[in-house]
């Protein structure tokens, strides 16, 4: 916002309240309430408003208080955000960033635990990225703001408290690149967002048991970084996908199809995909824990895969 006066933020309670997870804290005082706009409760409308503003030269960042509420903005995101650049013959650009906290949290109930990446992945014209560390959050956010395309940036409710030493100076990450978290030889584990931490926890156990897993945080959910993923598959010949989406129609489902199509010859075993069950997220803590893939399941899957 310092660098480019056209960048503005809009969403519910983003101004003086600082946002539901305090992502925009302090911005309203610094930049004024016109650039950090508190909106009435109408997701379809402020997303539509952002699209209109983007068409006229601004670079809006839309915050969904919780990603799940952006389902109310599906019409604007799908029919207008993703489409207007194409249907106008390239005349109108929509450089918006749509972001917000999503994923399964701690007992937030079904409506606040949505994984929108699976619903949005089909929309042509948008890009989707998921950040997972303070380092990649900064880099991906900057890249998303500077992109000329509409980008949906998925943050996770449980990752806001992570602390990490990151460079003060400016850096921009590539929106379409995956991140090599841990190189290895035996199996390729593809994951993103919060599941990265469950995978890394499982990796510790696996290393103790003598396995050498390669962990890749795919980051770019649309399009997939098939270059990095492909190189890994060609090396290890075994793939495990660990995601938080539901089994049916999730990112894992699309990724499985994509890898099968492109790297079939390099696979020694069918791809295994660990995802959440096809159930709404329950409130009870114990039940909620078991809708999300746990490190123990990841370890078991790798052992199975490497047999």
């Amino acid at each position, binding site marked *: 916002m310092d660098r480019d006066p056209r960048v*503005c933020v809009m969403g519910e309670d983003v101004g003086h309240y600082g946002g539901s997870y305090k992502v925009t804290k302090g911005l309203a005082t610094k930049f*004024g*309430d*016109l*650039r950090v*706009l508190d*909106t*009435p409760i*109408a997701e*379809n*409308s*402020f*997303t*539509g*408003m*952002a*699209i*209109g*503003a*983007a*068409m*006229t*030269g*601004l670079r*809006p960042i839309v915050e969904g208080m919780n990603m799940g509420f952006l389902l109310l903005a599906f*019409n*604007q995101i799908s*029919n*207008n955000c993703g*489409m*207007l*650049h*194409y*249907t*106008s*013959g*390239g*005349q*109108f*650009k929509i450089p918006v960033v749509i972001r917000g906290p999503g994923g399964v949290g701690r007992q937030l109930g079904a409506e606040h635990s949505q994984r929108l990446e699976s619903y949005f992945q089909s929309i*042509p*014209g948008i*890009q989707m990225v998921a950040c997972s560390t303070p380092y990649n959050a900064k880099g991906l956010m900057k890249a998303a703001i500077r*992109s*000329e*395309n509409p980008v949906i940036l998925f943050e996770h409710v449980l990752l806001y408290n992570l602390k990490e030493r990151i460079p003060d100076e400016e850096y921009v990450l590539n929106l*379409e690149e995956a991140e090599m978290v841990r190189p290895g030889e035996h199996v390729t584990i593809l994951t993103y967002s919060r599941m990265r931490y469950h995978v890394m926890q499982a990796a510790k156990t696996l290393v103790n048991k003598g396995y050498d897993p390669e962990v890749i945080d795919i980051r770019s959910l649309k*399009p997939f970084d*098939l270059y990095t993923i492909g190189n890994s598959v060609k090396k290890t010949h075994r793939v495990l996908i660990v995601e938080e989406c539901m089994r049916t129609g999730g990112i894992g489902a699309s990724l499985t199809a994509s890898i099968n199509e492109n790297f079939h010859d390099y696979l020694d075993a069918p791809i295994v995909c660990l995802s959440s069950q096809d159930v709404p997220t329950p409130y009870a803590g114990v039940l909620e824990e078991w809708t999300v893939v746990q490190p123990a399941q990841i370890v078991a899957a790798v052992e199975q895969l490497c047999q």
Partner: protein
Amino acid sequence: MHLLVFKICCSSVFPSLKIHPLSLFFLNSEQQTIPTLISNMNLLANILKQPIRKSVLIHHRSCRLTLFAKLPESLQLPAVNDTLFCFSLSTTAHTLLSQHAPLFDLQEQDAHNVNVQSIDFPGGRVTFTPQIKFISESTDKRVPCYRVLDDDGYPFAGSRSEQVDKETALKMYKSMVTLQIMDHIFYEAQRQGRISFYMTSMGEEAINIATAAALSPDDIILPQYREPGILLWRGFTIEEFANQLFGTKNDAGKGRQMPVHYGSKKHNFVTVSSPIATQLPQAAGIAYSLKMDNKEACAVAFTGDGGTSEGDFHAGLNFAAVMEAPVLFICRNNGWAISTPISDQFRSDGVVVKGQAYGIRSIRIDGNDTLAVYSAIRAAREMVIREQKPILVEALTYRVGHHSTSDDSTKYRPLNEIEYWKTARNPLGRYRKWVQRNGWWTDEEETELRGSIRKQVMNAIQVADKTEKPSLKELFTDVYDRLPLNLHEQEKSLRETIKRHEQDFPADVPL
């Protein structure tokens, strides 16, 4: 100092403040607008014939100033229904005024009365009453409609409207004729199978053209889909219309949208998107952008009577009001949403009364009266830009044509009703009488114009029909700013398939 007249609806709003029923205050967002208000000030002073006494300046937002001025009690008021000065007091101003009452040395009513008669809540003070009183769902009288010309093209006595010079008047008339002929011929072209789809604006030519004439070319239009006249006025050629309808390579939209979904950035006309009312919240965004850039322009968003039922109508208007965004909302109430008559669409007195619910000033006009539309839109636009607030205009009209070429409206409405509106209430006929009576137009010129436009449209169709379609690569470009890897692969795959099975693909698509 610049002043607008505010009419406080009733003095019971401020029971504790003995405020004069007609108070003056102004809203000024930035310095540039000051010069345009000076003439109002003089006019105002003349009407009131009194100098303005006490006044105070209050900052209440980073870019706004509010001035309150007290008038002497003995003042003679202008007529209550004076439409020049009919604004409603916003909630913010209410609160501010009550907060600063002491500055005006206004006498408080005795403390006892204050406690009994009004009470504080978030949103301000309200009086309360021991009676259960419902606000009626309808008024005895419907909101009147602004009209200048009668059915024979004679201006009503005492009608107030903008002066229209001969050049503008003729350009409006000729554009309405062009629109009408274009609609007829393109509609027929669809019937003959030359284009796949078309929607006419028949019966709404006055709304289309007079609105376009009243706006500035810098105003950004967000159409619903029955406003091609605006593009026509701004210089979109008949050939450009034909290219979009036929989806040729010369179409600005590169053949990607269905017919009548025009879009032209250079004409400040946002590409039409089929879902209804999605453009209304976008209008608030465009206005927000114009406001941040301090431009002397506004966003103009259209919708039909049906569109007012969409959630986006509520949210778009609410937003624009809260954001104080310079949007002009124009609702073409033509009586029908495909086969749904307005009696099945809403139960309010049309659309104009909905404005007040959002805190938006609104007006109802005769959409088939060219001069009324022109004057009203001019006035509304000026208010929108000067005050940086939205305004709602309900233009009453009738959809003479079918909803589109996929509709046969004779199935749900009587033929004689359609005939009546097509002939007796035709906007062109009425306006033509006025233009001809001024000595600006003759029957010969009419015949000549119609002949020449017909020829032009027919020719445009011939040419567009034979023009090449967009090349295959345009299937994949503009989805993103650059072609991503997956689309590159998909294009490659498609081209390979075409090469292998050339006979199975259309021959007229250039590769």
